């Protein structure tokens, strides 16, 4: 797959250059033997040949099940996890080659909100200190720092008085708002949101989702929204990339993905998510896939989904199956309007 393919087929064709371009990103983790000499005996293929663009003001949803590499991708995008190969361009600067010092300057532009609001805030720091910390690190606190922190707290729906309190005094939703305020402190242009609402109850989750949407509208940020919950991702994303075992298997505009999912895995994923509407839910035709995700240490040859693919198992002839086993399907458009990495891509309506 060429870079141009991804850029053409899966972006909303804006005139501006993307904020973030990821090209052929690969991240492997070594598996070492036991004992004194810890030889490398294998590689965990966490992320393989992943490419995508994000423009300012746009949200790209990255979905997949645990172990599919979505978190590793988000870490590699911020250079928190060095890439094995491939390039990550932020404003046309390849950050994979940057020194720590060069990276520190860029970190002002790209921030992250973590999943667990209980683990990502230092319990011994007051909320004011937490939100002020990035400003102090980058030498921006100065005389207007206090006012800036107050403004940030207001932006995320908290009060100035809350600054003197400590994280344990807040509910999960409020803590996540503190994490968002901290991420916004340096006026970044890209926010990586790693499962930002997964740990919250549904009634609280909705408020944080609304907040993220409003902040984006007001500040024009680009979001990389990593989550396993397709319902939330559908709500917030402009485009969605579906990952399976380290590869993007389908990428499309949100409405296209749900109206015409072309990859069997996407179809299974959409159809597995229960809809809170009894009549609809009970009338649905399910694509149930069997088994579990194979080990990323030794991923299947050819198409990585073939071991669980309902199409491979029951609809394909022997010679067709051979192609799935031998040839890695490229992420290209095959007549469904958006790229899907399946040799036999075909739209199935699963909603």
């Amino acid at each position, binding site marked *: 797959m060429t870079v141009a393919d991804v850029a053409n087929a899966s972006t909303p064709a804006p005139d501006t250059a993307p904020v973030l371009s990821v090209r052929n990103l690969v991240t492997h983790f070594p598996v070492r033997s036991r004992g004194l000499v810890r030889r490398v005996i294998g590689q965990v293929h966490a992320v393989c040949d992943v490419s995508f663009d994000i423009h300012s003001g746009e949200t790209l949803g990255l979905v997949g099940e645990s172990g599919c590499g979505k978190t590793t991708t988000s870490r590699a995008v911020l250079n928190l996890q060095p890439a094995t190969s491939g390039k990550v361009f932020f404003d046309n600067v390849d950050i994979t080659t940057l020194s720590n010092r060069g990276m520190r300057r860029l970190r002002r532009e790209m921030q992250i909100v973590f999943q667990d609001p209980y683990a990502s805030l230092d319990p011994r720091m007051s909320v004011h200190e937490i939100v002020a910390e990035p400003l102090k690190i980058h030498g921006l606190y100065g005389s207007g720092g206090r006012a800036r922190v107050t403004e940030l707290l207001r932006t995320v729906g908290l009060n100035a008085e809350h600054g003197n309190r400590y994280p344990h005094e807040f509910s999960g939703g409020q803590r996540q708002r503190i994490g968002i305020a901290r991420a916004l402190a340096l006026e970044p242009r890209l926010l990586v949101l790693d499962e930002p609402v997964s740990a919250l109850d549904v009634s609280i989750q*909705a408020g944080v989702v609304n907040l993220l949407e409003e902040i984006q509208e007001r500040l024009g940020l680009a979001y990389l929204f990593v989550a396993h919950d397709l319902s939330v991702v559908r709500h917030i994303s402009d485009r969605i990339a579906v990952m399976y075992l380290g590869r993007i298997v389908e990428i499309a505009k949100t409405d296209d993905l749900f109206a015409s999912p072309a990859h069997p895995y996407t179809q299974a994923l959409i159809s597995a998510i229960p809809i809170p509407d009894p009549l609809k839910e009970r009338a649905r035709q399910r694509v*149930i896939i069997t088994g579990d995700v194979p080990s990323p240490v030794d991923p299947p040859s050819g198409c990585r989904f073939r071991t669980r693919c309902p199409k491979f198992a029951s609809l394909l002839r022997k010679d067709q199956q051979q192609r799935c086993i031998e040839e890695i399907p490229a992420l290209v458009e095959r007549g469904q309007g958006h790229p899907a990495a399946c040799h036999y891509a075909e739209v199935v309506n699963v909603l």
Partner: protein
Amino acid sequence: MRFDHEGGTTATRAAASGDTALAVQDVYVSFRTEDGTVQAVRGVSYELRRGEVLGIVGESGSGKSVTSLAVMGLLPRTARIDGSVRLGDDELLGLSERQLAHYRGQQLAMIFQDPMTSLNPVYSVGWQIAEAVSAHHDVSKAAAHARAVELLKIVGIPNADERANSYPHEFSGGMRQRAVIAIAMANSPEVIIADEPTTALDVTVQAQVLETLKTAREETGAAMILITHDLGIVAGQADRVLVMYAGRAVEVGTVEDIFYTPRMPYTLGLLGSLPRLDRAAQQRLTPITGVPPSLINMPPGCPFAPRCPMVEDICRVEEPVLRATTSPTHLAACHFSDRLAGVEPSDLFRPTTSDDVLPATVGAAVPLPGDSA
């Protein structure tokens, strides 16, 4: 009540208690802590009919798990439990561990959230299922093992013969949960309590496990209590639904009652705060602002009043009881439940981005510029 082993055969129980498999009556659970007494469950009553699935939904801390642990007799000694839990004709509250052991597994089985911690890592999966079989049946080791393999086949474990000798760590999360379901099925119980059975699993595996649970119900004819926070699962699996809030049941009804004609603002709020997979709606969600009340020193009145958009003076004084609404079987605990006829979540809740402020600073909230307060 007296523990009567002889009277506990299935035939007599069914004849005596008719249609009800499990009756929970006015159950209260409280825990003493350093900060005061936590009223975790405050008078929950429900009936589980034979063969039906009752979904219990609620947010974390609403008491949905504690209620079921009380039913199973699994709460720590420090918990104070009042009320009555009747399985068929037999009262379960107040029984000794030894007496409870007779019911657990045989008539009342439980499936927990995390299959890694509910299986013993040092015994093979087959051994653990066989143990459940032989705990209540006088069978040979070989027969128990054969039954274990058969159960593994029913729950859809491939190569059940071989996999019975595997240990839990050799199973994936989905397979472990199937093994736990096999243990729950082992003695064809009357009631299976599944507490967030798929929360720890990925969605595609969740779909498989929900199918397995359906198989388990068909094989055993058991009634099931399905505790979950996922309203989608309830919509697909449950016959009736009980919504819990702050230790109380606030709405009970058929699954259609709850989803299509909710009569309690909290239920309506929950439905409105869900992003929907089947809708391209780009409108904002309508969250419920604020947080559930602390269960220590609960203020008088309706526990949902501080978060409720239609709160009135009476709500802060008098806690509403469950009352019949659209039909005698659809109950809601709200003073103004009849006002909710035909009301959509978006009519009642605002698509706000802010959160309720902490109790100490109520009234000092500064609305966002774009927030139409």
